[in-house]
């Protein structure tokens, strides 16, 4: 026995899962999407992914270096600081960078994604306190920031296997999603569901086009226990039905409301809903902690995406993610699980027979009379004498309200 012995509060054994391990799992789950993006959009996609990841990690490192006190001393032993930084590095910024690149179209310029990454990490994440403290999903915030800053972000190229350089025509906002939302439901101009699922020939963002890759990532995350399997499913189902319901209104002009379930899958496979459902909504930091809160969160988010999509005719997933993230503290505060075996204490109302009530009321009146020996208002005493039933009722109510207050 030597001095290496440690004492602490229990438990003395812990699971081997760490934050770093979980984030690495998310990175692995994102790989199929990243690879599919490279296959469809060429080296440009790879370049964007690399720029985003490197920019995010570098921003976090620079922030860590500057923000810790004693900047001058830090510069002297930079090696030690780097080592300490690596020790606490948990791959969250890698995840943020990768997601940010995957939810942008391949036409994005490298400097645009650089600015977006710096914004996402420095302002959205680190300024609020770093890992676990950010209010909104950094990737979603970065995407929103870019969407309202750079117009190019809203133009898409069609995914084509084998085209390593961008020579395919650039769709300006003419994605399958915008067709779907336009209300011109003509099956001929729409893409087949299988193409939407695989992403071939579909205009969209780098990681969002290939739904197969997303589902592979989803299965991996579920198997590894990173996310709960029902969370994305709940969101998707609610969203699907809400979207079909909303798109029915587009037919009113041409001849009445139609609830067309054939639109369920096209809605689901268009835009970034699936990607957001698997990789962005279940983000630990910015989603509710309790089960009831989570159910509410996914249901409201699903409806909100469908409704906003219908009215804005735009891809709104990132906006809704940000919006819902801001509701999370509220949800966490008011939807608390009740402890095991907890039962709401019911207020027991004493049931009295009418006779008892009358007797009680008479007693109360007697007390009143003795207390106020000279009644000021003659009419009042007259009333009580004339109609005891009415006064009995009022006294009864008074007794009740007193009890409730107490």
């Amino acid at each position: 026995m030597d001095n290496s012995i440690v004492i602490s509060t229990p438990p003395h054994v812990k699971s081997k899962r760490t934050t770093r391990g979980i984030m690495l799992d998310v990175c692995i789950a994102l790989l199929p999407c990243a690879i599919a993006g490279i296959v469809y959009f060429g080296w440009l996609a790879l370049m964007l992914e690399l720029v985003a990841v490197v920019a995010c990690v570098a921003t976090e490192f620079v922030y860590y270096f500057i923000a810790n006190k004693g900047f001058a001393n830090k510069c002297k032993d930079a090696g030690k600081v780097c080592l300490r930084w690596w020790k606490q590095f948990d791959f969250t910024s890698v995840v943020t960078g990768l997601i940010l690149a995957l939810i942008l179209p391949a036409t994005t310029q490298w400097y645009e994604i650089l600015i977006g990454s710096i914004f996402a990490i420095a302002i959205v994440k680190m300024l609020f306190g770093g890992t676990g403290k950010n209010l909104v999903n950094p990737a979603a915030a970065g995407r929103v920031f870019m969407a309202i800053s750079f117009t190019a972000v809203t133009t898409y190229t069609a995914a084509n296997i084998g085209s390593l350089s961008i020579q395919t025509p650039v769709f300006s906002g003419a994605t399958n999603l915008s067709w779907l939302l336009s209300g011109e439901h003509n099956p001929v101009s729409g893409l087949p569901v299988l193409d939407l699922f695989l992403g071939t020939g579909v205009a969209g963002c780098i990681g969002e086009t290939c739904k197969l890759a997303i589902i592979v990532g989803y299965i991996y995350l579920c198997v590894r226990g990173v996310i709960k399997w029902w969370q994305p499913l709940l969101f998707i189902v609610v969203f699907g039905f809400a979207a079909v319901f909303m798109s029915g209104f587009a037919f009113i002009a041409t001849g009445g409301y139609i609830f067309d379930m054939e639109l369920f899958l096209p809605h689901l496979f268009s835009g970034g809903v699936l990607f957001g459902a698997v990789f962005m909504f279940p983000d630990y930091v910015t989603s509710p902690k309790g089960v009831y809160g989570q159910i509410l969160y996914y249901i409201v988010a699903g409806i909100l995406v469908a409704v906003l999509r219908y009215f804005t005719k735009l891809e709104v997933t990132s906006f809704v993610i940000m919006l819902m993230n801001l509701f999370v503290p509220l949800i966490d505060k008011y939807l608390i699980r009740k402890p095991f075996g907890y039962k709401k204490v019911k207020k027991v109302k004493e049931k009295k027979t009418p006779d008892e009530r009358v007797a009680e009321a008479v007693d109360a009146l007697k007390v009143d009379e003795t207390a106020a020996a000279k009644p000021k208002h003659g009419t009042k005493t007259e009333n009580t004498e004339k109609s005891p039933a009415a006064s009995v009722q009022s006294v009864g109510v008074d007794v009740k309200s007193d009890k409730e207050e107490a």
Partner: protein
Amino acid sequence: MKAVKGKYLFGGVHPKGKKELTASLPIEVMPTPEVVAVSTSQSLGKSAVVAVTVGQKVKEGEVIAKADGAISSDVFASVAGTVTEIKELTGANGDKETFIFIKAEGTDTFRFPALTSPTAEEIKARIKDCGIVGLGGAGFPTAVKVAPKTPVDILCVNGAECEPYLTCDHRLMVEKTDEIVRGARLIATALGVKDIAIGIEKNKPDAIAAFEPYEDIKVIILGKKYPLGGERQLAYAITGRRIPQGKIPAEYGVVVHNVGTCYAVCEAVEQGKPLYEKVLTVSGTAVKEPKNLLVKVGTSVKEIIEYCGGEATNPKKVVQGGPMTGVALANYEHYTHKTTSGILLLSEKEAAADEPTPCLNCGKCADVCPMHLMPMNTAFYSAAGDFDAAQKYGNVLSCIECGACEYICPAKRPLIQAIRKTKAELRKKN
């Protein structure tokens, strides 16, 4: 009776059992140590009052400290010999405890008269006389538990042993099946109930098979999940009754007793033997020969480790009790209690001593909480010093401190520490 499955419990964790280290080893009787140091705080509630003086000769099984009040238990000499010293030492959990040192000499033993076909009152009196406490870990005096104020309709015997490493209850169930059944019947007589159910985790098929031949015992197979051996969790898994914290199970018609307690009751009634011995598991990869041992109360940890061949490697943590709820010892200068269920020497690899990282808000702690609480809120508000909010949003007073939340936490946050601190602060306030 044929074994049936228990109710599914939401929450809980699946720590690595590590029971294979000792699960197949029969219980060994450890030779009487030369000196024992018996603490007077052997149960929940008040410490017992010392009833011997230095130099006095005592028999094995003689009362050396008297119970003080209702929630307290008598303490007995675990060896025959002379009282050499009575002094205050710091106990395992940091409180001052009075220890009575006895030097072993001779083999004089004291026994209460054996009872044949006793009445309920006789059993209750005997349980009190023999100083029996709940051997599941909490050490609540059994005498109080067998005299509930509300009517009880089922006796649940706790054979779950959900803590990793520990196998003492498992071995007891396999080797002393009949004694446990007889003890359970005696407790049932004392309580005046007919239904007896025993809950056993499904990773102990031999124990389940051992109890199946008894027609009056319902055998309930529990899932392999921590903390199914908690009193409320076990009562729920067997009967489906949800008992909130702050209420005692007897109010819901359930009484839960550990298998160790049943065995002790059987010995107390049939042989008149007071409680001064305990089966415990010595395990962990840092000990040379893991063992299941029957030791005298008051044996020093050092001697037990030496008896088990000493250290194999340098231990990172020495734990008295189970790894999920036990107390970490700073050195070997500690002595076993009536309730000690294990001595674990955890090596560097097994013991958790990671630096905490920032909370991710992942909510895993709330998912695994068997009491359906929100430990992260407690930790958050208690770190900010707002203990009322910690209770309001985390319901910390309902916590059973099972440690499942801290076990699962990927950020390795010290949640139990925060919970204990909040509880202490709230108690101070009220």
